[in-house]
């Protein structure tokens, strides 16, 4: 196990020799492969420890000769028709032999990814809830016994060997799913309060405040509404919806050659090479950067990916393929695909080039080369067959603003005036201060 407390700054400052002197973990400790972790309380992603929101994914081998039948089943959609509180997003995709670098005719894998709150049982319950549809899909997979899907404990045993560890899990908000809903409800209610206050007598104001601000979310939103579930990749217009991108990009093979990667990353890689020695390959460098580089920052506000205003969650895993190793990237984002991917090139280009530059076919000019970057994405894109979103059309920015608003309203509600005139003045001041949270 790599040491979670490893200090990247110290490492970069002191270098290899200084590390031992400072009593810090040895280099081999930080570059060794992560052990396969049991599917237990700890997330496989060290950066994820302590988060409320967790991510897990499984890759299950498909039975020989069943790939086409599975694809036909998945094409019908509806895998995640039933909602489970505590699950934010889920997606299912089929990885073909070509994706996995396996010989032609190999059946490939079924992959499920779930983002959920805290306990793995939540994710398992969600799957079990949807056992009818999922069980039918598992029937086409290796080692599945009929009926397992509806039993969370049995399902756990079945899925455990197929778990894939995350090398990075980024979450733009570490809020439990019901907390997100609560924030949205508070924002809805507050806006409704303002709307009504605009059309009613001032004397009514205290009653409106009581009703919309102090009572428990009378608009308690969405809890029983059907969840939107859709396939991504087949919707030319999905700007109102949260979307998902999954791609599998083979990592470059062989010994690390800084001159072969994106120019802006070369000097940074040389630095790494100096520390970790000449025998590094691309996969080790890739994992090393994710573990110790800027992407390992735990404060979500300082995380490079926090600069992307439409990115809810992102995860990266390294998986073994027939031809070597590939990066599996999976994200949940808002709105237009192009505007989303251009965020990488315009907001975090250098950091992204640094890691994705270690994959095959990455544009030499990096993600600023828009057509090349998009071509690279499409080259490894995996068609997501089913996508479940607990928050429906709600954008990341809205969730973040609703959550700020809720915190501020909590403070305000402790000091509310009783007199209608004073109350109005107080509300107006609040709205003036916080107008950015109300559009």
């Amino acid at each position: 196990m790599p040491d979670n407390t490893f200090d990247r700054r110290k490492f970069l400052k002191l270098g290899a020799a200084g590390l031992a002197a400072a009593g810090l973990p040895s280099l081999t400790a930080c570059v060794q492969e992560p052990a396969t972790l049991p599917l237990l309380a700890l997330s496989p992603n060290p950066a994820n420890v302590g988060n409320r929101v967790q991510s897990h994914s499984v890759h299950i081998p498909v039975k020989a000769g069943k790939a086409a039948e599975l694809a036909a089943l998945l094409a019908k959609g509806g895998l995640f028709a039933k909602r489970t509180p505590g699950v934010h997003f889920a997606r299912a995709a089929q990885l073909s032999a070509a994706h996995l670098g396996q010989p032609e005719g190999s059946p490939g894998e079924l992959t499920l990814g779930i983002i959920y709150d805290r306990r793995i049982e939540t994710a398992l319950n969600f799957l079990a809830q949807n056992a009818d549809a999922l069980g039918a899909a598992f029937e086409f997979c290796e080692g599945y016994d009929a009926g397992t899907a509806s039993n969370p404990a049995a399902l756990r045993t079945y899925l455990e060997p197929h778990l894939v560890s995350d090398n990075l899990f980024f979450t733009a908000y570490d809020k439990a799913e019901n907390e997100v809903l609560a924030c949205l409800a508070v924002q809805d209610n507050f806006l409704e309060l303002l709307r009504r206050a605009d059309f009613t007598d001032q004397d009514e104001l205290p009653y409106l405040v009581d009703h919309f601000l102090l009572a428990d979310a009378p608009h308690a939103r969405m809890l029983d509404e059907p969840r939107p579930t859709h396939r991504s990749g087949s919707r030319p217009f999905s700007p109102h919806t949260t979307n998902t991108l999954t791609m599998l990009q083979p990592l470059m093979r062989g010994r690390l050659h800084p001159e072969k990667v994106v120019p802006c990353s070369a000097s940074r890689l040389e630095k790494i090479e100096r520390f970790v020695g000449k025998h590094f390959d691309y996969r080790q460098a890739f994992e090393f950067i994710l573990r110790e580089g800027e992407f390992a920052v735990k404060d979500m506000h300082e995380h490079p990916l926090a600069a992307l205003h439409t990115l809810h969650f992102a995860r990266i895993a390294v998986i073994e393929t027939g031809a070597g190793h590939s990066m599996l990237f999976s994200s949940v984002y808002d709105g237009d695909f192009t505007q989303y991917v251009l965020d990488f090139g315009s907001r975090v280009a250098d950091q992204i080039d640094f890691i994705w530059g270690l994959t095959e076919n990455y544009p030499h000019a990096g993600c600023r080369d828009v057509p090349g970057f998009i071509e690279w994405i499409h080259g490894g894109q995996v068609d997501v067959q089913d996508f479940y979103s607990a928050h429906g059309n709600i954008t990341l920015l809205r969730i973040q603003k609703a959550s700020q608003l809720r915190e501020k309203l909590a403070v305000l509600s402790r000091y509310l005036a009783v007199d209608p005139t004073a109350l109005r003045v107080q509300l107006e001041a609040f709205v003036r201060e916080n107008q950015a949270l109300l559009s």
Partner: protein
Amino acid sequence: MATIELDDVQSNVLRGFRHTEALPHVAYSLLGFTAKDTARAFLAEAAALATSCTAWNALAKQAGDERFVWNLGFTYEGLLKLGFDARAQFPNGPVTDSLQFGSFTGYAAFALGARQRAHGLGDVGESAPANWQAPYQRLDLHAVVSLSAWAPDGIAAARGRLGAMLARHATGVTEIACELGNALDRGAEHFGFADGIGQPYVEGSDLEPLPGELDRGGDPVPSGEFVLGYPAAFDAKPPCDVQGENLMQPLTLSRLRNGSFLVFRKLREDVVRFRSWVAEQATRTKMPEELFAARLVGRWRSGAPLALAPTQDDPELGRDPLRNNDFDYAADGDGFKTPFGAHIRRANPRNDPTGPTPPQIAGRRVIRRAVPYGPPLPEGSADDGIERGILFVAINADIERQFEFVQTNWLNNTLSSNRLTLEADKDPLVGANDAGNGKFVIPGPNGPCFVWNLPRFVTVRGAAYFFLPGLHELRQLGSGTA
């Protein structure tokens, strides 16, 4: 610098679109082809009249009321009907179920046509294709002859020529409908706003750039954004050399060269609703009516932008093409001058610190031309029951990447600014505020002003997507060498 072959590009692509140059009278004759050979014979005659950008320059310098501009466009079905091998020319043609959104070479939108794209554009409810006027519901809407003129006589002359041509080829071509438009005072649309001001300056268009028409970096918009076969936005200035290849538009096939795409939308404007609603809301929010209306749009009715005239109209500024578009939002990160949700800030975020980054804006510009139809409704009049609105046209090289993107993501969604997050906050002027539950926020240093229950003011009455071939190709289509 790319030089566009202006003598081969039709004039409705790159001429007469600026506020000051737009021709006041237009007619859009919508045609259906019934027999290929006759249609081609018609086309051979019609193509001979087609106006190029170069010819437009010459026409503009002449005098005479009977001058007219004549352009031709075809729907995807129209091209198929003529025997144009559209499937080969538009390789990303209609593969309805597996459209890759984000695809940059997508002519799929054109191939699918406006009716099929309507839902995604927010053309729902009253604006849904099922409620469009009959001509736009027809599957045999194949072509448009777009006429414009300096005087009504010009349109009459052109209509006369067209009528004679149609009569000669009546067995193969029929006129489904003809839409007539006439400019109102000051180049305004029916709500009273001077229209067509903020346009892009196109590289190689042989025009003089007006202040504000260049992009943020002071560069023109690449030719390929409007004319097929030229370098387009994303590869115009690659950060590193990508062998100078045109990756955005690999389709430099000779048949498409110098062509463009025209998005046609007949938009009804509910003038009575707009006026009474604005009056009511201005009273409620204790704001002068004109200021309130300006804040919905981002410009005063005169055309003066709020960015330069935030509190008071400046008609002189509105009239001055050297000043009325020379602004951005760099110093308005709070939206106190131009609200984040205002129509022009959404449609063209310029240098908005809260908006998309330059690469995200590149490749999203369109050339707009809009001419009102229907008589103006005098100020203070009650509803006269007459329909009025604008015949809206957008010119672009990739309908999905340009027009449709702006419509779906910036006007009807919140991606034009990170200060917009609520679904109810759609474009106040043209947004799909269907159930009358739109919302609009006017930020202000003394507190924001909320506008609730915003209704839909603009309704789609019909739409179609046309390909505008280069003149050479147009003649080929007519001569039957398609």
